């Protein structure tokens, strides 16, 4: 089963703002557990936390320093 990792709609307030992943805290292919902190997302000067929505193998789809919007799929967990 594959679970997409998306930028949650409520990660930040303003819908018109965009963010970027600043760091993946696990390597591509690493085993993660549901609820693990897997990435930091930066919106302006504020760091936000992205949690694993499921347990499994992390497959990173969006690298750091790429603009992301709410709802974007940035990884999957297999």
């Amino acid at each position, binding site marked *: 089963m594959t679970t997409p990792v998306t930028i949650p709609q409520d990660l930040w307030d303003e819908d018109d703002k*965009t963010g970027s992943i600043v760091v993946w805290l696990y390597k591509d292919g690493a085993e993660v557990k549901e609820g693990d902190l897997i990435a930091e997302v930066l919106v302006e000067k504020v760091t936000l936390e992205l949690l694993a929505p499921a347990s499994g193998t992390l497959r990173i789809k969006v690298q750091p320093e790429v*603009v992301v919007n709410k709802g974007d799929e940035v990884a999957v967990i297999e």
Partner: protein
Amino acid sequence: MQLTAEQRKGLLRTMALSRAFDDAMIALYWEGKLPIFQFGAGPLPGELHCSNGAEPVGAGICAALGPDDMITADHRPHHVAVARGVDLDRMAAELLGKKPGLSQGKGGHMHIYDPSVNFASSGIIAEGMAVAAGMALARRLQKRPGVAVAFIGEGAANQGAFHEVCNMVGLWKLPVIVVVQDNEWGVSTAKSESTAVERNADRAAGYAMAGEWVGTNDPDDIHAAAARAVARARAGEGGTILEVKTARLTGHFMGDQQAYIPEQMKQVDPIPPYREKLIREGVLTADEADAIEAEAKARMARAMAFAKAAPYPEPAEAFDHVFAGEAA
């Protein structure tokens, strides 16, 4: 000393210009820094501490001063600099790191110097306390007139320098006015969490200084208190701690989310109430007030255009000005 209608219009004009300055800088700040945040990028790199909300303090105090008087400001200097008449074009250019800036791009927004109007600022909290007192001491030794005014925040009143300097000002009856701008917050720390007394003005008693407290963030009231303090200083009666309850509407610095400020502590913009007051009291019409605000924005637009068009300093100029008396 009662302000004339013209002087009160001038206070509104000063506040509007200061607000226009900060609003223009805020509008520019994120350019080039987003969408992938980079602190040092864009036309206005680095930190930016804006004065929105504190305009009445700069306007009210500076209107009570004369050309011989001297000012030190802190890391949030724009409203004081604008009120003092620091060259607006060159100040804007300095914030953008340009060659025609007040400091030729060496200082940036926390380090505004304009000796032509006796204005200096510093990014180190409470540093200006002693510098102002020293300026006053110099005038005494030179047998020249001049009152020195140190603009600090309420957080700075807990620095050792504040207390050491106040003692000497009281001891030597120096013509120094310490303007404590109480905007309630030192970064995220509320005054009640940092300060043992409710009012810093009360601390004056411990240093044989006069204490003045203004609770309104209204430039008329601030000016009245400043005029009393200046009169005492000029009469040789010594210094004053003048505390004003003011506001910090745009956070400690750009990007401050201010999530630590509870709803009931949200602050009020002081400019619209003053504008309304002047209209109510027949000092000016709404159209005249609109015209003042429009002129402020137009003046700032010219300053920003000057700053943007100005060239950057050459990299090698970094080596100039380390010492006086050398070619540069």
